[in-house]
């Protein structure tokens, strides 16, 4: 048994990402068209040049026909992928393995979700009635379970912890404010965030990610072919995905202050990528900030902060865009929005811009270039504390020596 990875064997040569938001004027077909057309254009190719497709959507379509019909693809293989909120990253992971294996030369992963046609402001999920015994807690409620547990374990005053969560939302809104593709392009004051109406537990409206429509796409090929398409590819350093056994939800040993699935997938991805000190080696991280306490806990699970200290690091600004390790410089799920199937590829899109120093100057991070760092991390989590799937990917702008 081994997780060997495919370090540097696959390159990203083109990407596209639609603006995210309440796109009442965009259909599923429109979103797929916008993302894939931008993506192939950035690689200087046409859709005809793509050999195989992986389509990630959790609930906005079934089967490969969801992609082939609007794009009029000519009898191409299209795999529909679903893995909760890690759906987009899962499409990307499988497309990478397809070209690494030699089965195809050029593959595309597309992530898309159309959430806003449901008529509800939050996620509505899929039918899982069965015997009727599943507790009907909403997503924010499930993640809010982290808050009292974290406060209790580390002796953090609940009001202080609330201000930590508020600062996470404030930071991500601040980043999204300078991102023309983000759903919410506005800074929000800490006072307003802290005073927002409660949704679940200590979480207010501003502690929740934006529910939105959107799509993103990436083209990958084997590294030796990358320079046919671009002078500045990104290289895939590590890809890890784990689905947990649902231990925490039934095991009293679990204390609701960590995601074991994230710890495991991070260790695997770091090992594949040769990362030993993520906080010092990564130029940036795009993490799954579905709710503010998720981002807090992820800082520890991903090894960016010691256990029980992330709340202090947040207050110290460590993860601000101009901090030691910028986290979610594009605004994150919080501000960029969270169309489920698209989010993993939206994170990759920010790495694509930042690591190649093509982000707008007002949000270009300083850790790359003269900052000397070349690696970016993307992370998705689907499910909730105690029972989830987790993806951690590492990409870099330089091949390993």
């Amino acid at each position, binding site marked *: 048994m081994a997780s060997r990875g495919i370090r540097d064997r696959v390159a990203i040569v083109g990407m596209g990402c639609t603006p995210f938001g309440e796109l009442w004027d965009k259909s599923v077909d429109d979103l797929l068209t916008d993302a894939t057309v931008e993506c192939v254009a950035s690689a200087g190719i046409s859709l005809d040049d793509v050999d195989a497709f992986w389509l990630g959507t959790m609930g906005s379509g079934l089967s490969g026909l969801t992609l082939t019909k609007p794009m009029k693809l000519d009898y191409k293989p299209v795999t529909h992928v679903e893995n909760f909120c890690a759906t987009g990253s899962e499409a990307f992971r499988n497309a990478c393995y397809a070209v690494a294996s030699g089965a195809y030369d050029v593959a595309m992963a597309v992530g898309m979700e159309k959430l806003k046609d449901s008529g509800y402001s939050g996620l509505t999920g899929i039918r899982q009635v069965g015997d*009727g015994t599943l507790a009907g807690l909403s997503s924010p*409620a499930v993640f809010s*379970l982290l808050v009292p547990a974290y406060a209790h374990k580390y002796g953090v005053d609940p009001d202080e912890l609330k201000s930590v969560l508020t600062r996470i939302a404030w930071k991500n809104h601040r980043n999204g404010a300078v991102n023309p593709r983000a759903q919410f392009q506005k800074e929000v004051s800490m006072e307003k965030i802290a005073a927002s109406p409660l949704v679940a537990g200590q979480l207010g409206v501003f502690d929740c990610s934006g529910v939105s429509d959107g799509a993103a796409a990436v083209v990958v090929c084997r590294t030796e072919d990358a320079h046919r398409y671009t002078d500045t590819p990104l290289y895939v350093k590590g890809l890890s995905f784990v689905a947990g*056994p649902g*231990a925490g939800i039934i095991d009293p040993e679990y204390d609701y202050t960590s995601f074991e699935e994230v710890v495991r997938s991070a260790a695997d991805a770091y090992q594949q990528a040769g990362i030993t000190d993520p906080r010092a080696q990564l130029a940036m991280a795009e993490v799954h900030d579905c709710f503010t306490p998720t981002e807090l806990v992820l800082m520890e699970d991903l090894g960016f902060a010691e256990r029980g200290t992330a709340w202090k690091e947040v207050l110290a600004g460590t993860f601000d865009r101009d901090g030691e390790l910028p986290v979610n410089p594009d605004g994150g799920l919080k501000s960029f929005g969270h169309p489920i199937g698209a989010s993993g590829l939206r994170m990759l899109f920010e790495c694509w811009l930042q690591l190649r120093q093509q982000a707008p100057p007002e949000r270009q991070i300083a850790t790359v270039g003269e900052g000397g760092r070349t690696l970016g991390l993307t992370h998705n989590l689907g499910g909730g504390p105690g029972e989830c799937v987790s993806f951690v990917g590492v990409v870099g702008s330089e091949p390993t020596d």
Partner: protein
Amino acid sequence: MAAGIVSWGVYLPYWRLDRGAIGAAFGTSSGKGTRAVASYDEDTTTLGVEAARRALAVAGAPVPADLYFSTPAPAYLDKTNATTIHAALGLPPTAGAYDLCGSVRSGWATLNLSALSGEQRPAMAVIADLRTGLAGGAEESQAGDGAVAFVFAPEGGVAEVIGQASATDEFLERWRVPGETASRQWEDRFGEEAYLPAARAAFDDALEEAGLEAGDVDHLVIAGLHSRAVGSLRKELSVTAERLAPDYGPRIGNLGAAQAGLGLADVLERATPGQVVVVLELADGADAMVLRTTDDLVAVQEARRQSGGPSVAELADGGRSDLPYAVFLTWRGHLRREPPRRPDPERPDAPAMLRNEGWKFGFSASRCEACGFVHLPPTRVCLSCRAVDKMTPLRLADARGTVATFTVDRLAFSLSPPMVGAVIDFDGGGRYRGEMTDVDPAAVSIGTRVAMTFRRLYTAEGVHNYFWKARPVSEGAGAPDEHAAPADARKKERA
């Protein structure tokens, strides 16, 4: 060893409606005191389950061979409600379960039938009522919700039936057509005229059958929804005032079909051996039962205290009375409150409910025979040691637990938002994430102690979705738990 009642249990819901709140809403006077109110997630079936659990929690209570359930407000027609109670109690399939539903008087039939049946093999009577009435009316303010359960057995009876009599009469006094939530009543004075002769006859005949006279009666319980007739009889029957069972109506209201049982339970909790108890119920005529307590009463009274089961007096004193009248009206379907903007819940699947009967209705987990790990819901593969199909069912409905973390969910669909969610670790193993009920959201914290209670989560497409929720319990010394959970006595007995 006498045949008769061997155990009993009473359940009153957590909520009380202050009658003053009704008057405040209508700008009228609505009387003093409170009434017991079933919560939004309770119906007569769940009320009955809780009363029955208390009756069976008493050490030495036998497993009933037959269960008879009665209510004038059944959750289902055609489908038997007693089978739901049977499943929630985890009774063996060989135990019968039957409804006697519809009229208030069917509650008496249930008591009678159980007493007769109990002479042969253990039988349980479960009687529940949930009374609503029209907004602002007398029934709304004066009635109450609750349930009682009595176990009868061939031996070990603490009260044996020594006389009974009926006086049946057909007269239109109180009625309700199916589908209506409020009953209608003929003029009050007519009802009194109709009831009094029947009540006198039943009372006298029952005593005569027992070979006793009114002066021999130590405890008299008079039940009936016709309060004017009941009041007259309390004065008229030749029993001194101190021998009249207390009227808890001012605090909990009149429990309708369960009222006679409530009075009998209260008497059994206070009586001494060798006393004569008469229960008289006015419903479409009158019925009377004469019982004599036995020497076994003292031991069962003690066993009940040991089981943590609250007394009727304690229950009547308990409860939470800050229920807003508008919330009460919403729960009873009289006020259509805007629901959270979430999809409506869907009905559960019948095959899945049957496959998972032990879990859904009995809150039965699976315990790994190889390593002891407890799984909720039950699974075939062990999380801890990965053993496959080495599981033993483990009923946790009666276990206590502790809140590991919690939330107040203001987004989730609930018939009475917000939903309180909690992660619960059970004493002796097992973790479950679910809903809490009968809870003040502000009072929940890590470490809160809970017990499980059988509830109706919601109703969709005419299907009642029953399952278990957690409710806080106080376990401090000298603090009787108003909602006390059963002890493990019966579980041990069955094991």
